[in-house]
């Protein structure tokens, strides 16, 4: 495989490229899902191919081919160069010089999730899903997944790295239907559960079967709960919703390609400018956010990004002030600061983009109970249900699956259909409590979309529960 990559790079250079890299990616993935006692999905996927990226006269070309042989590799290199030569524009793209990277990285794991027999995975799902049974629960779903990526990258700068990333995850969902409404509860996270770069021990540690009865009970109870009323109030978010808030309102707007406008037509740009580095007050002093592709277990972890930049922890927000961006070699060179290190492609058929890796809200102090102390009236919301944010990542509206009133520092009655809305710097500026390390949890998302053509990235976020003042809740048509 390494020789094929070298062949592609040499062919691109011979065709006039000033820079070239070639990436072979093989991805094996298994997914099992059960629904109401029957197996909904039992699938085993394995795909591979090569992506060749070139710079010709300052213009990018990228071509990908599934044929991992001489013909496919040479065809990809030629097509990438043909495209770059014809691409409209002024094209003066430069890459930040880096030391050529050489090395190997493998996810530490105890039990290879792909070596776990499929029937064991099916059994786990059926047991967890059986524990979701409840008279009001009409749809019970349990799912697990296992994945291994092998990536080989060779560049004309002399980089040669190999990586093997192992990932798995799972979750349960209960949909209760009654009283003319439906209500969903999920564990450990919404939208397909949570994943980690780890062995099968991670899935076993989730305790899906153990948590399922609570999930089902809450889904059923929501059918009889009062709607969350509109109010301007104190809002406490659980770690799961907090990490999605970080993802949408901190992660995406600090991607330096968005800041420079290259995502404008699709995902949008950013309310943050390149000149804001080091001075912009993003939120309150309690807000510290770190990008860390070295986090053990993070699904955004790696040894090297897809430009061969070694993984390193980088601050993004410190004490509420913007001190970093997520960047690539090209965007870092343009800014004249930072080091790149956040370039990731979904697979062999996509060009690397600036992506989140693992982006964490650093913990504060104290317990969840301490966070509720002193709140006369407020609402506590848990587990994401819906999300929407504008093209500059300013105006957002989120919904969660469940909420409870807070009265005199204690949780009170359950509320259904909770939503809250805000504007990014105002919202983060109102942050006045972050629970401590003992409440900090990390979640692995596998559905972060960006780019044209679209690419899905896997990213992890860690967070503790948070408290915000004067937040608009209960938005409805």
């Amino acid at each position, binding site marked *: 495989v390494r020789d094929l990559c070298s062949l592609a790079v040499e062919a691109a250079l011979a065709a006039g490229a000033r820079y070239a890299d070639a990436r072979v990616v093989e991805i094996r993935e298994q997914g099992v899902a059960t629904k109401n006692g029957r197996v909904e999905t039992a699938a085993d996927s394995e795909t591979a191919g090569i992506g060749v990226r070139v710079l010709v006269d300052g213009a990018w070309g990228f071509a990908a081919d599934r044929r991992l042989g001489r013909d496919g590799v040479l065809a990809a290199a030629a097509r990438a160069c043909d*495209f770059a*030569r014809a691409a409209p524009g002024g094209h003066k793209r430069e890459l930040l010089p880096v030391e050529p990277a050489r090395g190997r990285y493998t996810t530490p794991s105890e039990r290879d999730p792909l070596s776990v027999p499929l029937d064991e995975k099916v059994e786990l799902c059926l047991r967890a899903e059986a524990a979701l049974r409840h008279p009001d629960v009409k749809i019970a779903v349990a799912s697990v997944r296992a994945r291994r990526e092998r990536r080989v990258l060779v560049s004309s700068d002399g980089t040669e790295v190999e990586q093997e990333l192992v990932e798995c995850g799972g979750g349960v969902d209960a949909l209760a239907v009654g009283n003319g409404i439906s209500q969903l509860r999920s564990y450990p996270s919404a939208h397909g559960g949570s994943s980690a770069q780890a062995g099968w021990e991670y899935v076993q540690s989730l305790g899906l079967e153990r948590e399922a009865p609570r999930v089902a009970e809450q889904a059923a109870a929501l059918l009889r709960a009062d709607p969350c009323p509109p109010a301007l109030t104190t809002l406490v978010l659980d770690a799961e919703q907090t990490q999605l808030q970080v993802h949408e309102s901190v992660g995406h707007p600090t991607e330096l390609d968005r800041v420079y406008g290259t995502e*404008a037509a699709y995902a949008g740009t950013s309310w943050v400018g390149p000149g804001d580095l080091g001075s912009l007050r993003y939120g309150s002093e309690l807000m510290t956010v770190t990008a860390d592709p070295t986090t053990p277990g993070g699904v955004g972890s790696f040894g090297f990004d897809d430009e061969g930049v070694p993984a390193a922890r980088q601050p993004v927000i410190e004490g509420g002030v913007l001190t970093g961006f997520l960047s690539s070699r090209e965007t870092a060179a343009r800014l004249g600061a930072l080091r790149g290190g956040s370039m990731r492609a979904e697979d062999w058929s996509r060009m690397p983009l600036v992506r989140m890796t693992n982006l964490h809200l650093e913990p504060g102090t104290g317990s969840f109970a301490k966070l509720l102390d002193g709140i006369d009236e407020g609402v506590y919301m848990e587990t994401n249900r*819906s999300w929407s944010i504008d093209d500059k990542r300013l105006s957002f509206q989120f919904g969660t699956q469940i909420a409870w009133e807070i009265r005199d520092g204690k949780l009170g009655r359950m509320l259904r259909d909770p939503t809250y*809305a805000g504007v990014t710097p105002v919202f983060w500026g109102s942050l006045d409590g972050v629970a401590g390390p003992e409440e900090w949890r990390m979640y692995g998302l596998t559905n972060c979309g960006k780019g044209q053509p679209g690419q899905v990235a896997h990213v992890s976020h860690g967070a503790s529960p948070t408290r915000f003042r004067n937040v608009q809740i209960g938005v409805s048509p």
Partner: protein
Amino acid sequence: VTSPLEVAGEAVALAEGDGAEAIVSSERSGLARFAGSEVHQPTLIEDLVVQLRVRRGGRAGVAIGNRTDREGLRELVRRAEAASAAVAPDPELPSLATPRPVPDAAGYDEQTAQLPADELARAAAPAIAGAGVFDAYGFVTSGATETAIASSVGMAVSQSRTDMTVLVLAAGDDASGYADATARAARELDPEAVGHEAAAKAARTRGAGDLEPGRYAAVLEPYAVAELVQTFAGMTFGALELLEERSFLSGRLGERLFDRKLSIADDALDPAGLPRAFDYEGSPKTRVALVDEGVARGVVWDRRTAMRAGAGHETTGHAPPPAASAWGPQATALVVAPGEAESTEELAELVGDGIYVTRVHYLGIVDPREGILTGTTRDGTFRIRGGAIAEPHVNLRFTISMPELLAEIPGLTRRRKLVNQSDFYGSRDAVAALVPALATASFTITGSGARPGL
């Protein structure tokens, strides 16, 4: 083995057990993405993916791969058989589809299929030039795909399709406008005209102001209509949503739920769309009336949901690929019937006082069963005063009930537009909606967002 149908037949022949079906999807595509009037993110793809479903004693397992040499297909069969052996017999597993004649669907254009890499790159130039004084952001993309299905009960169908989309956001620091165009053949598109449309819109967005939250009448351009109706369809017009009581139509089929002017169908055979002859079970595509003059008429079905529902239900030709079976059948060739208005300006006259929305952004599903969505407007939001399009507004956050939005429709345009609905995630499977512009009496603004522009 060269053609997708031959690959599918070979995979099926290698499988043992009670039966097998193989879906082979080939893709040769290119996307020239540009920003700041320069192409910055090209993607040229050559791929061929085999999805093999093997059955054994009422059990089914799926394997997916893109190696098509004999050894690669053998490995695929081995993994599919292992997957089927791991599951219990499924009483809801329908038998393999028996071959049926599939309709003609003229979805292929040779010239588009053969577009070389350098010509695709050059095709971005007129789109960029059309943006004029503004910088252009967007893409030009074309793709040729072939889907072939073979099974152990004699299914052997294949169809080649092409598609092309030009999308332009014309933008400056304080202004932005949007346009896109989609067709099955490159010669049907005028990239420069798309750039012009986006630029003309952008020029009117400077000096945008806030708007008080509240309920407004609105004129929605086809771009906004397509995305709103497509999202609503995804949670409403599929049989699985109906059977699981997650759909707004659950318990309401046959009722008049919407304005009489509203008729929506799913029609993959409409020659004005991106025609498709059969679904991922090989069942022929059929036109399905979803809403007929305001009355909820039906949803789309595949063989699994039809069998589960019983009572004479049959597939309508809407089976998803095996890898997406959990989503159930989906309406992805939406056609909204036209109205009588000659233009969006005429719709503004009908509305009198309200807002004008070019495009919506980042829709979030707040309550799927009630059809409640939130999102923001983008790249061309204006006030309508005295029946005319007036001053620009910042991007506005809305939280809307789609059933309410569609309950009172002052008018729709006679002219319709094919609007791309693909973000091109995963393997290429171009979909688009054929929709008019629409005026509604109810569009609820719940906040203000960013200004137009970068």
